[in-house]
């Protein structure tokens, strides 16, 4: 009690609070990780769906998981050659 009060007065953070903060971040990051083969499967499925509507360059398609502070985004980039006419 007295110790932590002194630390607060001296503006020092407890090392255990640092540990806790790092741990929480690590766990969030760990859970966002996706297996490589799952990403490949997703990419193949997406290509099939998009190909129904557009003619695309399969080789130029890039699928990425973008992680930044506090949020995670799936980014798909594909060159479109032409729209399919029904």
């Amino acid at each position: 009690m007295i110790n932590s009060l002194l630390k607060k007065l001296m503006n020092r953070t407890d090392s255990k609070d640092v540990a806790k903060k790092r741990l929480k971040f690590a766990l969030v990051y760990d859970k966002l990780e996706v297996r490589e083969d799952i990403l490949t499967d997703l990419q193949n499925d997406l290509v099939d769906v998009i190909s129904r509507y557009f003619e695309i360059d399969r080789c130029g398609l890039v699928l990425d998981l973008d992680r930044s502070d506090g949020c995670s985004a799936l980014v798909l980039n594909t060159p479109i050659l032409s729209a399919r006419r029904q």
Partner: protein
Amino acid sequence: MEGKIIVVTSGKGGVGKTTVTASIGAALALQGKRVAVVDMDIGLRNLDVVMGLENRIVFNIVDLINGRCKIRQAAIKDRRINNLFLIPASQSDDKNAIKPEDMSKICEQLKKEFDFTFLDCPAGIEQGFKNAIEAADEALVVCTPEVSAVRDADRVIGLLYARSITPKLIVNRIIPKMVQKGDMLSHEDVVEVLSIDLVGLVEMDDAVVIATNTGTPLVMQKDSKAGKAFTRIGMRLDGHPDLPVEDPSSQKSLWKKLGITFSRKNRIAS
């Protein structure tokens, strides 16, 4: 009535799984239960030396699974504690020597013979872990108050949930002085991060090293704080789930103790 299969696991190595298995097993046997402890760390067996039974191994878990012996032959009886039995791991095979299905079959038999069967899981989340959790009814996750141990515990907890097992947490090797100084994660911190039920708090204790040196049961040493904590965990697993968890980091003034008992009683009453 059928017995329970309880797996003791952690993800990270060296956090005290084997000591926890041996001590809780011994505690429950002393409380009059028939207990088997099984070393699942095939290729790197250690539960036998911790329990001081290494000179008496004839058969092991792989022999048992391959039908080369019966449970009665594989289970080594502890001569100091009645009703405590060890089924050792094989030292010459590896984790792939057995399959999860084999464990299901053996555990069915073990349930008929013993009130409690504790499976001492190897570190990691590979084959050995899969073998150990396959037939488990319950799980104890052992974790020390360190970032690496908590992170691995979180991973293992996720894998246990995926198998519909709700694990309980043991925080091991707490150093009260460091917790009070704010230099070690408190058990509240660990519970908050992992958000699972706590079943016991164990203080860092020299007696553990000494008991392991000599291969004697920790719970039989009267003045060991860790030994007492394990005895209480045993009671919680055996029909006394509400037995209060004592916090080794709280200053043990009489008033605080009373305060804790009062608040517990109130909670039960309400």
